[in-house]
Structure formats: C-alpha cells, structure tokens
C-alpha cells in the first residue's frame, strides 16, 4: 500500500537567509531609497524621475517613495529564455536552474607559453570562446578577456562580440562601452533572429551593467539601462561593492545597499518602459584589509552571493552570482580550493547565472586552463546536487535479497544500468600508484594543460553564415567610422 503524509526530497536543500531576514533586508533597502537616495549622472534619467513622484535634489540626488519602488519591482518577468547564435544551446534563467559561465573584460591573459600575464587580445577571446563552446558544464559565455588590440578602445565592444561569436555558439552576457555600443551589439545579435520583434522572443544575450557603489550611477550605465528598457533587452544591474570600503563591513549592510542600487535601476527602467527583463546581481565581496585587493576568493563573497540569491528568489528575479574564481596568480592549489568552494556554494544557492569561472589574480587575469579545471569541478558539483532517489528500484530491496550475504553486484544487470548515473571524471586521476608512475607521474596541472591544448587544436564551432558575417562587419566598420571623426 502506498503511504500517506510523505515528503520526498529529490535534491539537497540549502538557504542562507530565512524569509524574515529577507524581509528585514528588503525593508531596509526601501528605506535607503526613500531616505538616502542615489545619484544619477544622466539628464534624461533625472527628467524621468522628476516627472513622477521622485524627488531630485542637490543636482542629481534621487529619492523615490516606497510605493513607486514596489510598483516597479513587481513588473519584471520571473523567467528569461536565452538561445545562442544557433539553436543548439538554450538556457532558462529562473529560480533554482543553475547555469555556469565565464566572466568578462579581464585586462590580462595568462600566456601559456611564457607563464607570464600579458594584455588580452582579440585572439585570446576567440580561444576562450572556443573552449567554452566545447566544455559541457559551461552554459553561457562572457568574453573572459577584454580585446585591446583594436584601433579605438571606444568601439572595443563590437570587435569583442565578433570574437565571441566566432568562437562560441552558446548564450552570452555582454559588456558595452555605452548606450551606442549596446545598440550596435543588439543590432548584431538581431541579425541571427531576422528582426527586432523576433529577437525579443528569443534573445541571445544579457547585457551587463553596473552601478558604482555606493549608490552612484554613471552616464554610460544609465544610457544602457534606458536602451535595454526601450528594447526589452535582458539586463543585469550588478553592484560590485567592496565590503568595508564602498559598502558596510557587515554582510547584511552590504546586501541592503546592493539591493537599493538594483531597485533604483528597476524604478528607472519602469519609468522608461515597464517590464524590462531584470536580473539581480552583485559581486558582493570584501576589500582585503592588508593588500586592499577586491577579493575573488573570499568566503564572504560566496556567503553574501548566496544570501543575495535567496533575496532574488523571494523577489521573483533571476540571479547573477559568482564562482569558479580566485585571487591566486596562477592555477595552483589556492586557485583550485577557491574555485571549488565558490562554485559549490553558488550551485547550492540556486543562482541562475554563476559567472567569473576562470578568473585568476583577483579579477584581472584570464586563465584558459582554469576553465578546463572548473568544468571538472562543476561536473562533480552537479552530481552532488542530484540528491538521493528512494523509489523501489533505487532502494534495491529485491536485489539485495537476491544477491544475499557474501554475493557480488559487479556482474548484475542492476549495476550495469545504474553505474552510468555516476560522475565519471575526465581529468582527475584515480589510478593505482604503479600505473600513475608508468604513465609519466602526471599531475592535475599537467592534464589540464594537455586538455586545454587539445581543445584548442581540435574544437571548431559551427561557422557563422557568410551573409551574416558580412552584415556584422558592416556594423563594426560603421562604428569605427563614426568614432574616427
């Protein structure tokens, strides 16, 4: 007979904040917006606020009544679907569906030949793109590095997107120079869908925008927000506070301030055009009080990000979290420890997009090998997230009785069927000592290097259609021309 009053937990459960704590943080953030306000360095934004219930004082300080904030925050969709440039890769941004991907715009790349860091170039981004296109556990792509070998840094974003498209067919998160840059990126992406309305149905990228903590919004950030609102481009407004320097030294205080910054953007886009797909974000970490570095390996980053994810789920917004990154200068033991723990925490929290996988050197240096290492880590983590199935087939009562005391399971059909559900490492070594010696005493680092070189040698993504390629180039050329004047 089936039982009654049963609860089946199909996956592990994890949370940092209780609902009451989330309400406290949310309530405090409303107070910040109404009492302290935020600065907007943008005329149209100030006009939009002035024309409604908001108060603008001291030139550009905006305070918004709670009623308007609460109206705005309820208008964003609860879910966003993204499709890469081909139909092959689709991801869903919604509660508890966790997608992993890179970060973007690192000024340096770790040079695998010299072992030194150097300025990131176009080809580095193409290579990162190809590796992400190949790796099964990376679901979206940000540029990893920032393209610097272009004639004009003011149009780097168009070249960078081209490099990304060349190497990768997965959905993306893009940075841009300003509103004009974002417009070009959006035009470029729309070419793959055949039109503006079609693009709305099936967007390819999320645009990455950040305020400047505490509570400051610069001109280019606001331009991008307003354009995203107008065109319905999925958009993340992701505060990057360093606790103790640009946010309170307490995690709760940092969360309050970050949420205020995000909700201010929500209000602004609501006034422009309600309903923009908004993703909550926040690289909420600490300023290291000895080195003053903005830490990418601090446990507080993971803790605050997971708490932020709890808040995002309560608000019904997808969440942009952080993992797979490190303060270590090269891919060493520190890098492995920090990457693994941050990925695991972000995964358990159920964030929609976990980015910065492959960042080394506190967010300034890009490692291709780190991507390969993290792919293995994420594979393990996803396995741990699968939980325990307790259906009859899995309790295996019949089987245990059949095999009996002193029997063996190796040759049984049940084993043949179910061992395939386990995680099979691609790079980790589980061999015996003698075999390991015979095969050259290779370390994890050796195997990661070999795999990175193999992918770069062998993997080619599906090419871009010739006609679209031409049109993409035309948009870039036109931007170069406009900016050379």
């Amino acid at each position, binding site marked *: 007979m089936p039982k009654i009053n049963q609860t089946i937990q199909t996956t592990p459960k994890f949370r940092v904040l209780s609902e009451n704590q989330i309400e406290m943080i949310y309530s405090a953030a409303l107070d910040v917006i109404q009492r302290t306000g935020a600065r907007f360095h943008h005329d149209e934004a100030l006009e939009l606020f002035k024309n409604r219930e908001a108060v603008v004082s001291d030139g550009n300080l905006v305070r918004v009544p709670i009623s308007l904030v609460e109206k705005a925050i309820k208008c964003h969709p609860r879910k966003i679907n993204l499709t890469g440039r081909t139909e092959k890769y689709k991801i869903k941004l919604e509660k508890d569906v966790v997608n992993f991907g890179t970060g973007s715009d690192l000024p340096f790349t770790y040079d695998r030949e010299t072992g030194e860091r150097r300025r990131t170039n176009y080809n580095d981004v193409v290579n990162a793109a190809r590796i992400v296109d190949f790796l099964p556990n990376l679901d979206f792509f940000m540029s990893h590095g920032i393209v610097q070998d272009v004639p004009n840094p003011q149009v780097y974003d168009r070249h960078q997107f081209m490099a990304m498209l060349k190497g990768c067919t997965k959905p993306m998160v893009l940075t841009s120079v300003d509103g004009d840059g974002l417009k070009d990126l959006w035009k470029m992406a729309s070419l793959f869908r055949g039109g503006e309305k079609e693009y709305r149905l099936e967007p390819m990228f999320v645009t990455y925008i950040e305020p400047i903590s505490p509570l400051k919004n610069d001109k280019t950030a606001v331009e991008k927000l307003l354009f995203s609102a107008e065109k319905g481009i999925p958009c993340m407004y992701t505060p990057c506070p360093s606790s103790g320097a640009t946010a309170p030294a307490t995690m709760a205080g940092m969360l309050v301030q970050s949420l205020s910054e995000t909700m201010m953007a929500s209000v602004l886009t609501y006034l422009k055009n309600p309903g923009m797909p908004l993703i909550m974000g926040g690289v909420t970490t600490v300023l290291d009080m000895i080195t*003053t570095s903005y830490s990418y390996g601090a446990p507080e980053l993971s803790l605050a990000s997971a708490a932020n994810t709890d808040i995002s789920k309560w608000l019904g917004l997808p969440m942009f979290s952080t993992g797979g990154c490190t303060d270590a200068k090269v891919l060493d033991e520190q890098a492995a420890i920090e990457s693994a723990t941050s990925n695991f925490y972000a995964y358990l929290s159920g964030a929609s997009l976990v980015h910065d996988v492959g960042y080394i050197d506190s967010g300034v240096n890009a490692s291709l090998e780190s991507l390969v290492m993290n792919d293995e880590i994420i594979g393990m983590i996803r396995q741990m997230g699968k939980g325990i199935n307790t259906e009859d087939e899995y309790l295996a009562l019949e089987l245990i009785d059949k095999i009996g005391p002193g029997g063996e399971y190796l040759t049984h059909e049940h084993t043949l069927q179910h061992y395939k559900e386990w995680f099979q490492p691609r790079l980790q070594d589980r061999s015996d000592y003698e075999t390991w010696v015979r095969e050259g005493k290779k370390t994890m680092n050796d195997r990661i290097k070999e795999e990175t070189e193999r992918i770069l040698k062998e993997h080619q993504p599906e090419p871009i259609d010739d006609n679209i390629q031409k049109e993409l180039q035309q948009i870039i050329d036109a931007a170069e021309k406009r900016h050379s004047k």
Partner: protein
Amino acid sequence: MSEKLGKIADGLLHGKIDEVGELTQELINDGMDPEEILQKGLFAGMDVVGKKFRDCEMFIPEVLRSAKAMHAAMEKLRPVLSEESSSKAGTVIMVTVQGDLHDIGKNLAGMMMEGSGFNVIDMGIDRKTEDIVEMVKKEKPQILGLSALLTTTMPKMGEVINALKEAGIRDQVKVIVGGAPVTDDFAQEIGADAYAPNASIGTEKALELVKG
C-alpha cells in the same frame, strides 16, 4: 614635555584622533619647537605604524585611523611650521581622470599619503584634462596622482601627461598612475614617473620621488 611626545607617538599608533590633536596643540602652547613635534612625535609614531602594517600587525582600517590622527595633528602644526618644514613631504593632487567615476583606490591612496605627512588635495572624479592642468599650475604640487579603473578611460592618463608637457610644466611635477588595468609598462609608455599597484606602494613611491 618629551613625555607628551611619546604620548603623541603612542596615540597615533592607537588611532586616538582627538588626543593626538590636543597633545599637539598643548606642545605648541608649551613652546616646543614645531620641527621637534613633527620629527620626534608624529613621524616617530607613523614610522611604527608603517612597520606594523608591513609586518601585517596592523590592517588598513587601523592604519587609516592613524592617518586621520596624523591629519588632526598636522592641522594644528602646519600654521606654525616653517615654510620649509611644512612642505617637506609636499603637496599631492589626487584625481580620477575624465569619464571615470571610480574613486575608492584614489581615496585610499590619498589617506595613506596624508598619513605620511603630505598635504593632499583631492580633485574628485571624472575631471577634465584641462582642469587637472589648471590645478597643477595653481597649486604647484610635488606629486600628481592619476587614477583610472577602466581600460577605456586609462588612455586619459597619457592625455594629461601630454597636456602637462604642452603647458610647459611637465618637469615641475612628478606623476604617479594607478588603477586595476594599469601596469608598470603602461606607466612608462605614457611617460609617468611611477606606477602604484596599491595605496601603500603609491605612498612609498611618492616619498621616494619627493626625496629625489
């Protein structure tokens, strides 16, 4: 009186802002040579702070509180110091270049320099090249600290240096550049005098440049 000098040094170490300011004023009132207060009280205390910071016995928040105490003492001392002594460390202009609104690194460096006895003028963020040149002309600082966080605003630092050349005042001021995407190579490329990867190295470089 020398007991009070010890108390000043100790107060700096423990970040006692009001006490250090008051003790400095008392010693001035007592008629002590301002130069002696500076050397044996303030610099003696800040030397220990510097050493403890390098040895990881003090952290940034404590160092900055010491710097604040130093600032409080200098406010009392500067009016009575001789021209030569009060500008011994020198004046620094700190600024974030045009197009960039990031300022935490610049502020931190400014505070640390203040702690080392510099007179720091903070021009804020997003400042036009010509405004920076004007300020250099007006204040005649020994050091100009330029900050940028973005690769897109970084080239503005080179623009400022060129504008200083065009204005004929490049050799009157030492330029230190800093910010996440900045490197030593970049600093040399644009003709800066020094590169500061962080606030404390920036302060060390500033002191070296002033000594000449």
